[in-house]
């Protein structure tokens, strides 16, 4: 078993990973913990609802029950993009050059270098957001489909329609596909060039975590008793192909997936607190953390691909050194 440095988080870990090279654990109570060297704890929000890492990992964007939206920098500095509001911040997504999109109910605001650069109101509540790889387009998952807007212009909005409630969304690294996860235990994909649909169903529960490998050849997903990994390599993506099931721990369900920053390897968090890493080529699973009490809520790789941060519902957390 690899070496684990435990972190006494104590509360539900909403997000964990590396900001720059600094390990960071953002808790649902609004505290951001940096356990490196002398541990620091910063109370950013009265209740943290969502967090997203910058494209270049230079900061962590956080949103709270207090309605505030903050940027947290690894040197400990914080910047407030938006002050208090009576409504919770529901979702955040980070684009290039420090762009942050924030969703409060149906309303999306995109913050750029010089403040607010775009506002958009969806017809329905925004359940999830993702920037396109080039960062000029923003996808918003909502009831009955995914809205696509350009962040620099009001023109050219597009609606990818599919009946049902879409609760998650991700772009493929080459920008050719948009994939959503749905309330009814399925994923749905669109090829943007010709609007072709892909249905990825058969999950026993909701897909709450999706992650593409660095090269975009595979899309890993949670929601089953194994990581369900769809092939996106060919020109038709996963159409007509079956996924591979990796790291099966039946009957324990996978709660989080996070692809390695370089290799075709998926880190898998399970509902029993286990963490594993599986190589897609041969399906070989390495257990990184044994069974514990509480479900894994977040996993984050360091850029070097040697460290994985993990956090749980009960506030157990730590950093795994996979070389140790």
């Amino acid at each position, binding site marked *: 078993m690899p070496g684990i440095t435990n972190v006494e988080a104590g*509360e*539900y870990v*909403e997000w964990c990973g590396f900001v720059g090279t600094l390990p960071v654990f953002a808790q*649902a*109570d609004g505290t951001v913990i940096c356990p490196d060297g002398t541990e620091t704890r910063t109370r950013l929000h009265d*209740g943290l*609802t969502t967090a997203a890492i910058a494209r270049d990992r230079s900061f962590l964007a956080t949103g709270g*029950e207090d309605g505030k939206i903050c940027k947290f920098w690894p040197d400990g500095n914080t910047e407030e993009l938006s002050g208090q509001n*009576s*409504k*919770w911040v*529901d979702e955040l997504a980070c684009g290039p050059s420090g762009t942050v999109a924030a969703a409060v*109910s*149906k309303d999306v605001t995109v913050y750029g270098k010089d403040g607010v650069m775009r506002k958009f109101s969806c017809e*329905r*509540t925004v*359940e999830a957001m993702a920037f396109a790889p080039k960062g000029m387009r923003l996808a918003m998952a909502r*009831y009955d489909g995914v809205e696509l807007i350009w962040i620099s212009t009001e023109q050219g909005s597009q609606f990818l329609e599919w*009946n*049902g*409630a879409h609760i998650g969304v991700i772009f493929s690294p080459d920008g050719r596909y948009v994939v959503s996860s*749905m*309330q*009814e235990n399925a994923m749905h994909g669109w090829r943007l060039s010709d609007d072709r649909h892909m249905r990825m169903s058969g999950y026993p*529960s*909701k897909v709450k975590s999706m992650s593409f490998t660095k090269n975009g050849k595979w899309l890993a997903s949670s929601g089953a008793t194994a990581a369900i990994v769809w092939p996106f390599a060919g020109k038709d993506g996963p159409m007509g192909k079956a996924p591979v099931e990796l790291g099966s721990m039946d009957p324990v369900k996978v709660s989080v997936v996070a692809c390695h920053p370089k290799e075709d390897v998926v880190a898998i968090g399970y509902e029993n607190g286990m963490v594993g890493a599986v190589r897609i080529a041969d399906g070989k699973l390495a257990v990184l953390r044994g069974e514990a009490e509480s479900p894994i809520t977040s996993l984050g790789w360091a850029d070097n691909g040697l460290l994985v941060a993990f956090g749980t*519902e009960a506030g157990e957390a730590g950093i795994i050194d996979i070389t140790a």
Partner: protein
Amino acid sequence: MTNSETNALGDSKIPVTVLTGYLGSGKTTLLNRILSGDHGRRYAVIVNEFGEIGIDNDLIVESDEEIYEMNNGCVCCTVRGDLIRVVQNLMKRRGRFDAVIVETTGLADPAPVAQTFFMDEDVREKAELDAVVALADAKHLPQRLKDSPEAEDQIAFADVVVLNKTDLVTTEEMKSVEVLIRSINPAAVVHRAERADISLDAVVGKGAFDLKRILENDPDFLATEEEAHEHDHECGPDCDHDHHHHHHNAGGLDANTHDTTIMSVSLSGGELNPDRFFQWIQKITEIDGPDILRLKGILAFPDDPDRFVVQGIHMILEGDHQRPWRDDEQRRSRLVFIGRNLDREKLERTFAACAA
């Protein structure tokens, strides 16, 4: 607190009270009474709109009503997406509160709210519906029922109806409005109140949605007039016992005595053949689910020492053993359907065919 169920992790589920009621029925007043009550319980309150009266509570979440139809071809399979999100987020810090109250807008459909607690696996894992409480204005309810299907739905859907502002009506008017409520929903517990002043035990921590628990407190539930050995006194706001005013039904009053569209069909019989019954109830809810707002029942099966209870919302059906039949109890099966366009004759006939 009540003995709520526990989930797989052994944590007890958070009880959720849903407050419905038309604008001006006194919902916010009741909510503030609950919140300021001397009970030591801490509440998280979910509201869909901030009304004119302030809500006095530390933890208030404002959410936009978001109805999601499930993509399974069934029009009545609806959940509230906003509640799924808020409840999940609240549960990340569950040490902050002991119970949740959802205050719906006056026009809200209670079905998606209630169904969220059964249909969404994440919510179901962590929270359970305690009761759907409908506030009704004694003076204006009859008119509301005529001009608003939402008001009717709220009464039809309730486990507990608080008939408020009773000081503004005559005894005659009050009796007739109670008959009206009873004709829409014979299964609800009705309480009278002035200025929403009611014993909190009557509305929170009831487990009223959980038939097993309501039956422990009220053995005459769903009983007909002849079966119920109920006292026949006038119940005022001081009365903290659950009562169903079965005597109001005695005069043969039923669904057709009011000009609303919701009706109820009460069925009663002896022991049932379990195979035939389950096939029947599944078929009925599958076909007529969209028209069935609620169903509740207590059933007797041959060679089964336990009472079996069922309840449903539209197509969702739940059933479980409750407790052994007592020696002094008649092993009778009783079932009530509340809904629209119910075919009384068909229900009676097909139910009768389930007899053991």
